[in-house]
């Protein structure tokens, strides 16, 4: 178990190194000039140059990179100009919001996508199959920003069913005492049902937006995987043994078919974390995606670097979790490991 962890982390190191270098170069190439920003609105060109010198921005790139690495080694990700906060604190505070949103979105996608994939696989090339395919493809074809806007317009503005798109809680509630940072969990831990329903209501539309987008990969993967499992020998054997339809589809076929789907989930999740930057923007969701967008547009590069680092680490961690999940489901991997 620890061996696997260590091997995995070692394998991820070159990737992380690549991410650090690329991010550093990319952010230095951003058009903004922190010196001009810090120098204030009425500064002369000389004043800006002076501040540039003080900030060390006149140093050769490799010296700046050295400084950056040294700071990174101390866990110092710098300060955000936009929020005025240390990037680490910002990310620590916003990550749970993104994670909660993305996970719920994924749950919605899996909740619909898996049954859709199964239904399609049970009757390939029937109208059910075609319908599932069209729905899933339509979902992934909708730009998330467009879906989000439409949902807000219809369900909040027109129908009034959804609460105002004001972030994780309505303005008059306070967040539950922080344990996990996931409001749904924290509010339940605190026994605060009102906050729980409030948080769930706020989550509904943005999570649905993400869910619609992630539906296709999950439904497709389930369908394909289900089709290949359904045509495999042991399903035929199970039928020959007269097992009931439910037992065959769920206990025999689906459990096997989910193995490759679990692997896909990792990809989908990392894909969603990227896709949710626009969703967060639309729903005023205080996650790290909207944080990164704002920072990038403002050429505020400490948050951009911090965000990318956080995502890269998350990506590695995610793959590790997927491996572990795979082990939990598949005895073959478990015993070999």
């Amino acid at each position: 178990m620890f061996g696997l962890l260590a091997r995995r982390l070692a394998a991820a190191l070159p990737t992380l190194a690549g991410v650090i270098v690329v991010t550093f170069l990319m952010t230095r190439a951003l058009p903004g000039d922190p010196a001009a920003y810090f120098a204030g609105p009425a500064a002369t060109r000389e004043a800006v140059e002076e501040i540039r010198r003080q900030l060390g921005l006149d140093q050769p790139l490799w010296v700046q990179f050295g400084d950056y690495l040294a700071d990174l080694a101390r866990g110092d990700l710098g300060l955000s100009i936009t929020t005025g906060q240390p990037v680490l604190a910002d990310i620590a505070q916003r990550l749970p919001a993104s994670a909660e949103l993305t996970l719920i979105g994924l749950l919605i996608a899996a909740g619909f996508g898996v049954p859709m994939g199964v239904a399609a696989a049970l009757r390939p090339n029937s109208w059910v199959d075609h319908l599932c395919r069209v729905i899933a493809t339509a979902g992934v074809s909708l730009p998330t920003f467009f879906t989000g806007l439409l949902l807000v317009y219809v369900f909040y503005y027109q129908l009034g069913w959804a609460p105002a798109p004001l972030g994780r809680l309505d303005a008059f509630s306070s967040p539950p005492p922080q344990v996990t940072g996931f409001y749904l969990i924290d509010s339940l831990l605190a026994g605060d049902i009102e906050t729980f329903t409030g948080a769930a209501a706020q989550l509904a539309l943005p999570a649905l937006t993400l869910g619609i987008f992630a539906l296709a990969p999950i439904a497709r993967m389930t369908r394909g995987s289900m089709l290949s499992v359904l045509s495999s020998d042991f399903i035929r054997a199970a039928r020959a043994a007269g097992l009931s339809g439910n037992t065959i589809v769920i206990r025999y076929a689906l459990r096997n078919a989910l193995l490759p789907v679990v692997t896909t989930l990792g990809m989908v999740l990392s894909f969603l974390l990227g896709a949710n930057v626009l969703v967060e923007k639309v729903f005023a969701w205080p996650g790290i995606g909207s944080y990164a967008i704002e920072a990038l547009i403002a050429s505020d590069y400490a948050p951009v670097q911090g965000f990318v680092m956080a995502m890269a680490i998350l990506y590695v961690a995610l793959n590790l979790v997927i491996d572990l999940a795979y082990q939990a489901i598949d005895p073959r991997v478990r015993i070999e490991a």
Partner: protein
Amino acid sequence: MSASAAAGGTVGHIRHVLSENPVTGLSFGLFGLLVLTAILGPSLVPYDPLASSDAALAAPSAKHWFGTDNLGRDVFARVVVATRLDLGMAFAAVALVFVTGTLAGVAAGFLGGWTDRIVGRVTDTIMAFPLFVLAMGLVAALGNTIANVIYATAIINFPIYARVARTEANIRREAGYIEAARLAGASTLAVMLFEVLPNVLPIMMVQVSLTMGYAILNTAGLSFIGLGIRPPTAEWGIMVAEGAGYIVSGEWWIALFPGLALMLAVFTFNLMGDGLRDIVDPRRRT
């Protein structure tokens, strides 16, 4: 089997796939429509897509099918004319990554060794980024131009191509005809380019159709946040972004129609990709 029989077989196979999957036929039809719109669109539209007028924010009518935007420009004309740009950008990006990604992947899969390791590292590093944010960062860093949007879109799609091509080349590495070509004295490069590559191409063509949709979404997403396209150029993403502010005040048509066009285009390419995969590689249908 004779050549004509083989050709007949392919046609028959395509016919079979289409009859089994009417949705694919529909996607081919839509694709034709999109391409025609991209080619002929600018000469067909009733209004200059860039000309403002006093008839601002007019609702859809017989005169303005999709209404007009905040500057009185005809939304229908803009949506139609934008087809060429949106498809063009996505196509350029996909063409770029098709060439580079396929070559890199084939080299990695066929040669193995350090080539494989380098390509693997590059793809891993790209994959570790949240792709949309990487694209944003690249465009912001390289400069806010259409060309850079295309490069950024190509870069974030690189891992998909490199990985698929790598797998396919790797499978074929030990194939009989490769051995035969090698024994016949062909150089490694020649074997790779003339034996492996042509065999990998059909599968990569399927990827083209599948990633076209993603490329369109990506370029539109970038222009949604103000990167890439310069006003007053008509482009679907930026039109949705501009129209977004008008939805709440009831002028839904400004965002809705470009949004629908965007969706339709992506939808077409995704469905077509599925269909092409059926034709090229029936076993892999998912």
